[in-house]
């Protein structure tokens, strides 16, 4: 029951946010929809019993890649990026408006409270599913596999990450003024 609810919500979040990435004109809103889609994929990993992959997805994608995308969008926005920015209420200044902060705080509080009510109701109706862990933990097996069977790919990925970081730093260095 809990797994099916998690599956349905994650699948809907993934698909609807992916379509949102496609449909929305503003690139900043597109990045935020991508964040929702990646969170949905992490929920799908959790329903497949892949706990380590789900947490890694949230840490690397949502905490790293989407933030990097948002930085790139803000750095390459151009001059008229700020003046054209509008929120859903049509207010021009989306940074530092008291009404937007108030509405955001209210919506967040209502969202969190309703979700806590819903999740507590589900957890009280089916306590056995929550206590009897349906999937065993995969962390120690993944650790053993990474240093036994797949150790070559592991080392090559470390070299790849080093090369990618050095290359990104060299490519994006400031231009020489001459």
């Amino acid at each position, binding site marked *: 029951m809990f*797994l*099916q609810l998690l*599956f349905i919500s994650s*699948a809907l979040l*993934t*698909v609807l946010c*992916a*379509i949102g*990435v*496609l449909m929305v004109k503003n*690139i900043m809103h*597109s*990045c935020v929809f*991508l964040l929702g*889609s*990646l969170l949905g*994929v992490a929920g*799908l*990993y959790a*329903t*497949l*019993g*892949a706990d*380590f*992959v789900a947490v*890694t*997805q949230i840490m*690397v*994608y949502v905490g*790293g*890649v989407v933030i*990097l*995308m948002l*930085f*790139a*969008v803000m*750095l*390459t926005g*151009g001059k008229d990026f700020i003046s054209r920015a509008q929120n859903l209420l049509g207010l021009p200044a989306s940074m530092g408006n008291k009404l937007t902060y108030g509405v955001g705080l209210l919506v967040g509080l209502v969202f969190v409270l309703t979700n806590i009510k819903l999740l507590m109701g589900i957890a009280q109706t089916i306590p056995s599913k929550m206590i009897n862990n349906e999937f065993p933990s*995969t962390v120690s*097996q*993944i650790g053993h*596999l*990474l240093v036994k*069977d*797949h150790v070559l*790919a592991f080392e090559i*990925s470390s070299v*790849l*990450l080093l090369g*990618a*970081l050095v*290359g*990104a*730093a060299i*490519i*994006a260095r*400031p*231009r020489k003024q001459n």
Partner: protein
Amino acid sequence: MMNLYSYLIISLILFVVGLVVMIARKNIVAILLGIELILNASALNFVAYSRYVTNNLDGHIFSLFIIVIAAAEAAVGLAIVIRFFQIKETIHIDEATQLRN
């Protein structure tokens, strides 16, 4: 309901949407978003087959390496985008017509 085919359908939708984003959008950052969606579709396929078909953890390892490679690709791609914006003052994909300078 929670079987292999539902995960494959979700992965198919993610792949097709990512492909359409890569083709239709003219912003370079949006094209990178489409690449991220396609990589997520493939990683989801790996984990779904690992759960329902092979019953070992090799698909999880593949998925982790896909996440690592996507992070590296995003770092290099966004560095190229920032460099392109420094030169051309735009990030429209049709402006990228020459390799040098």
